[in-house]
């Protein structure tokens, strides 16, 4: 293929760096002349104080709006309604809990074992005090055993093997005077190793 080959455009390219600028300034000057204010108005009487006050009001409003918006956004992350079971719930009448037995009826739904041992009815948390898994009650071996890391607890929730550093936590229990059921209140908990479970709030005598 003979004939003319289009020259390859080498640097500097015509775009956008070296467009012809001749005439542009003239045009701009015309525009300036056309738009020039012929009879300028007298300057507004703006005082130093007014500028200062409006700055404070302006930035203050801006900061307030921003701050409230940020707080609202943080609050947005905390749901008002969740679909978890209530923290305080009815179980069954005290006499239905057999001696030296663990009732797992409220394990899945509410995270509580109802344990009747040594003449006391206890509401024991199903959260392992090692790292928060749920142990299993092994009837034959008479112990709670955590599948995650092997922590073991006696029937009364006191730890005896594995990595856990302390006993299972317990919740407040009381008898509802109307229904006669034992009520568990998970809002109030106690920790046996700190001696906070001694009070009458944390067990019901069954003997």
């Amino acid at each position: 293929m003979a004939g003319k080959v289009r020259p390859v455009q080498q640097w500097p390219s015509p775009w956008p760096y070296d467009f012809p600028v001749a005439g542009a300034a003239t045009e701009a000057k015309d525009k300036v002349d056309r738009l020039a204010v012929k009879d300028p108005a007298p300057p507004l009487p703006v005082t130093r104080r007014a500028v200062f006050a409006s700055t404070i009001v302006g930035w203050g409003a801006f900061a307030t709006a921003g701050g409230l918006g940020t707080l609202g956004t943080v609050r947005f992350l905390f749901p008002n309604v969740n679909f978890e079971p209530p923290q305080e719930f009815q179980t069954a009448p005290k006499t239905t809990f057999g001696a030296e037995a663990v009732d797992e009826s409220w394990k899945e739904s509410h995270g509580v074992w109802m344990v009747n041992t040594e003449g006391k009815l206890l509401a024991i948390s199903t959260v392992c005090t090692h790292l928060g898994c749920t142990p299993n009650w092994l009837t034959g071996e008479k112990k709670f055993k955590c599948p995650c890391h092997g922590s073991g607890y006696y029937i009364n929730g006191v730890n005896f093997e594995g990595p856990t550093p302390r006993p299972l936590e317990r919740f407040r229990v009381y008898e509802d005077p109307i229904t006669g059921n034992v009520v568990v209140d998970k809002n109030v908990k106690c920790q046996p190793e700190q001696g906070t479970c001694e009070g009458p709030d944390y067990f019901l005598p069954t003997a």
Partner: protein
Amino acid sequence: MLKKVSDYLRGTQVWKSIFRHGPPTTARNRAMVMLANVFLHLHPVRARSSGIRLSFTWCMGGLTFFLFLVEAVTGILLMFYYRPVAASAYTDIMALREDVPLGIMREIHRWGAHLMVITVWLHMFRVFMTGSYKPPREFNWGIGVVLLVLTLLLSFTGYLLPWDQLAIWAVTVGTNMARAHPVIGHEGPLEGILKFEDVDFVTSGNDIRYALLAGRFVGEATLLRFYVLHCIAVPVMAMVLMAVHFWRVRKDGGISGPL
């Protein structure tokens, strides 16, 4: 012949509208290649040949970025099938393995995530051993530490999505750390300073763990929250910081020379 075609193409308006410089045959045009491209301009125009030796960099930063791209592409593909609700999350994961064509897509995503954690650590190790964190590159080390944390958070949030026993209990155990956060964790130190008489303002129902899980324990709301964090929030943060990270490599004098 080939030259004429290429010369013709380079002369067209379409070509010139995309590439504002000539072919990279001169030093100036080579520099222009880097400067006129939004992706390449993050990189240094020049690098020491000693600095880009594989035995010096191990290419660990580049491999980490490559793995991030793999994760982004496979992750978007997985999103076409996965629904982050308790009723279908686990079965969708099973379907991705058993029913969906190319059932290793999820495994690529998973192995890529493991590899990315490894390459990030090795990159950090290389940068430390070559002294590349020293002035003027201290700020970029800081950015890199945040990117390391984001990489670990990506792995952690993705951990929950299969919604099996391992996922739920691993995230239960992991988020229990948030209970012990000072002041805003309900079992942490100084938790009591936000207490008025008998009214405790930091409880299991409003502390930082509650915000993270959207509940007192790992539930369906947690699954959705971790899904959004995994697919949107953390990747966007990582992408912004990666751009800063690469750009600062250039601004801080390119890849460091051997000691």
